[in-house]
């Protein structure tokens, strides 16, 4: 519980800063700046101490998603950047052209999820990667062989170019309700 204190206070900070939310919109930059200066860098260990995360099958991977490769600390800015993936998509905003792809677009949300599968980040979910994810997510009742079956089948299903792996394009054509499933109302 003690270890969880830091993220929780961060959440409080986030709540305060809610109107200005993570998008680099600029309008309320000062508020964000103040927040940034107030918060301490967040360590991996802090997140790993959260009890619920420990039982989450994808917990470790998500924790890692908050940290850059090889680093154990994250500052407020990059932390918020990761969180920004989970902002609900606002209607009308997506139509604006000429702007960089917002962090909370469908594509970005999907990318975030994709990276969780794609551990070696070669842009493909290989059979082994799929198997690893399945091993994490599927209960222990299912035997390894069955898992292999599922993995094969899953890849077969999505694999369109026949390379035996799921590329991001193949991943993103799935009819998923990403906007809804990958959004936190808290960040609205």
């Amino acid at each position, binding site marked *: 519980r003690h270890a969880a204190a830091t993220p929780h206070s961060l959440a409080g900070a986030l709540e305060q800063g809610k109107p200005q939310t993570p998008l680099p919109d600029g309008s309320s930059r000062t508020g964000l700046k103040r927040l940034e200066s107030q918060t301490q860098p967040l360590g991996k260990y802090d997140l790993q101490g959260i009890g619920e995360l420990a039982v989450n*099958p994808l917990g470790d991977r*998500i924790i890692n998603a908050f940290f850059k490769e090889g680093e154990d600390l994250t500052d407020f800015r990059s932390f918020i950047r990761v969180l920004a993936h989970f902002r609900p998509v606002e209607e009308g905003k997506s139509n604006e052209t000429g702007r960089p792809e917002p962090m909370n677009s469908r594509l970005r949300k999907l990318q975030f*999820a994709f990276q969780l599968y794609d551990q070696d980040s070669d842009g493909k979910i290989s059979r082994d990667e799929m198997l690893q994810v399945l091993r994490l997510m599927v209960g222990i009742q299912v035997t390894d062989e069955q898992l292999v079956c599922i993995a094969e*089948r899953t890849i077969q299903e*999505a694999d369109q170019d026949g390379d035996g792996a799921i590329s991001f394009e193949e991943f993103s054509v799935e009819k998923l309700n990403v906007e809804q499933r990958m959004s936190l109302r808290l960040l609205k």
Partner: protein
Amino acid sequence: PRARDAPSRRSGAGAMQPPTGPALASAPESAPGAAPGSSLLRWQWREVQAPCLVAGWILVASLAKIVFQLSKKVTSVVPESCLLILLGLGLGGIVLAIAKRAEYQLEPSMFFLFLLPPIVLDSGYFMPSRLFFDNLGAILTYAVIGTLWNSFATGAALWGVKQAGLMDEGVEAGLMDFLLFGSLISAVDPVAVLAIFEEVHINETLFIIVFGESLLNDAVTVVLYKVFNSFVEMGPVHVQATDYLKGVASFFVVSLGGAAVGLLFAFLLALITRFTKRVRIIEPLFVFLLAYMAYLAAEMVSLSSILAVTFCGICCKKYVEANISRKSRTTVKYTMKTLASSSETVIFMFLGISAVDTSKWAWDTALVLGTLLFILLFRAVGVILQTWVLNHFRLMPLDRIDQVVMSYGGLRGAVAFALVILLDGAKVRAKDYFVATTIVVVFFTVLVQGLTIKPLVKWLKVKRSDHHKPTLNEELHEHAFDHILAAVEDVVGHHGYRYWRDKWEQFDKRYLSQLLMRKSAYRLKDEIWDVYCKLNIRDAISFVDQTDRATSALWLCPACPSGERESGSGACLDLQVIDTVRSRRDKEDAVMHHVLCGSLYKPRRRYKASYSRHFISPSAQERQDKEIFQQNMKRRLETFKSTKHNVCSAKSKARLKKDGRKKVSSLGVAESEACTYRASPSSLLAAAVLVAVDSDDEESDSSETEKEDDEGIIFIARATDEILQGKKASGSLDVCPSPRIIPPSPTSAEKELPWKGDRGDLAVYISSETTKIVPVDMQTAWKQSISSLESVASPPGAEPGPHAKTLAGPAPEERHMMPEQRTCFQFPNPLLRSSRPQSASSPERTEQPELQPLMAPDEHGRMSTSAGPSNSRWLIQFNRHARFSDG
């Protein structure tokens, strides 16, 4: 809550049941004592009258449905409920003309006790629970606040109209009467909503909100109706402040109590089905009985019975489905749907019939028009206001179009009608006016709104539901999303809806499921795995639908000892067959096939013989047919999947692995559950490997394959002794399986007469539980068919070039064979892999010519010229050897 014991309004022959007796359930009670004197025939109409009428009406309604469906044009435009109401009007008119009085009304007691429960149970049981609970907030808001607002606003506005003097003097009603009327007319009706919206196919979220509202507002309606009814009966002057408080309190009691009763019975039901293993045949009965008991129990203590059944259905489903057998599941589903559908049909028809009875009517234009106007207006206002508030909290806001559909979809139906009939005419003096108005409102909403909602939805371009088949990817990713979001919520420290759902799931997993599910069901429970099983079954079914049966018949004939199958194969309905040009080659192939099958291992006959030696079972034939089917299915599914998903040869490697595993795992596979049992013929692997491997030999082998799981062959080859040891060396990566090494394989296979090898297998596997096994001989048989199939596909006499062409050609048999052949290329594969990088786009066609030289043309009478068949032979050998060394 409602005065269910209202005196039966029907007179004479129309009385379907005595007011207290259960009409639908009770068999005709035999006449007390025989009539004096003897007679050959006696007219006993009185005895059978009630059930006969019930059956007759249901029959009429069902026949009407058939007639409606005859014309696609009509049913695509007009919802069935509208047609039924119109039919009811017509029938009512006929009855009125013949009998000179209106009969066969929709009795409130009959409606609430018999017609409504099946519909509610059906909707609760098949409610998409995830969607329902995701939107529970919105649903509850609309159901509670919306209904309250509607009834008060409508009642008050009507009272205002009355005060303004626009209504006829005959409408003797005070504020309380109008509020009472408002309460019964304002509730959206689940039956009507379901009937109309099921045909509209709007998106799930919108549907669940409207439909959930119609179900959950029952509590509000019941309370309001009861409270106002008592107020009216007491007389407005006697109503005290405490009565209002009691009204408010009773809302919570009625709604929460109803839900609690439902949960209680759901728990009981789940618990009972846990122990029905030996009484499979009555499993479905428990579902219906317990749910009905929930309804009656809630009704008995005047709680919301609809809520009770709804929650019973929603909550029990998960455990019940896990506990009961697959057949029972189907039975439950169909019975439930049948009951609900016939109830719905009867309800709408009787609504029509009841409307004909003009004796109850008292028309007042101002009241009718006012009511129509107000319910539409206030519904729209209510929806817009509530949505505005809700959208602040919703992740996905409901937009304008959704709001239009929601307000327009507020249909009224039989519940309102039954409630208004239940009013006590002595106390509520304007009852006749209310009845007439209710009928008009119901007819207006069902007929006019029901008819126009489809075009409206089309015109507004409301997001429709996209009914795509569930895919494994979807299931997996959505689970992943849930986990991701739960994790992010944890990181942020925000305990939202997901947090509690997670907690609930953990609790469910730890305690509830263990308590309420069978051990076997609990062990095998995993959603992703479930989807996988389902997909396999679906594939199997669609594959059966798609493939031409001629091909399968060709394969089956030699193997099948019974003539039935051959005759059955004559009925070939598939288009692909028509396309097939029966070339000479095809005929040759067929002849070849017969030759091969004649001289090869014959799984069926051997199997039968050895089987009957151990067991003399009358159902041997049946089992055999089944097994043939399964065997064929399994093989064909494999090909189907690969053709469907365009797997190219890069994948064959993966398949090889599986092959190797399969051989291991299937040595003595006993399957316990229906699901996995079903899955196994269709899945790539035998589903549940429960039985331990027989001997140490095999165990070491299995570990062997695990280690070098690239080579399914090695395991097989290695199993046998001298010759095959050499074989193993050839099978490993470095050494090319040159023709020089391969020739031993036919001889080895020859040495072992196939049926002998087979018999050895059977002795082992038949002895264990015969009914639940996909025995290894199925595997071998499968291999067998592959080998025979391959020989068909590549007749030795053929020149490589044209042959490859044929393979690519449209002949369905051959197309299906192609992937199989890949399995047979196990030997060339290592060679290929080692000699040159295998490009993803070089399918087997490039390999095909290379294989050709491997076949000795003069040996084609034997089965194994290429590697594949010999493999299967070795597997057999191995098994036998293992057996022998054991014993």
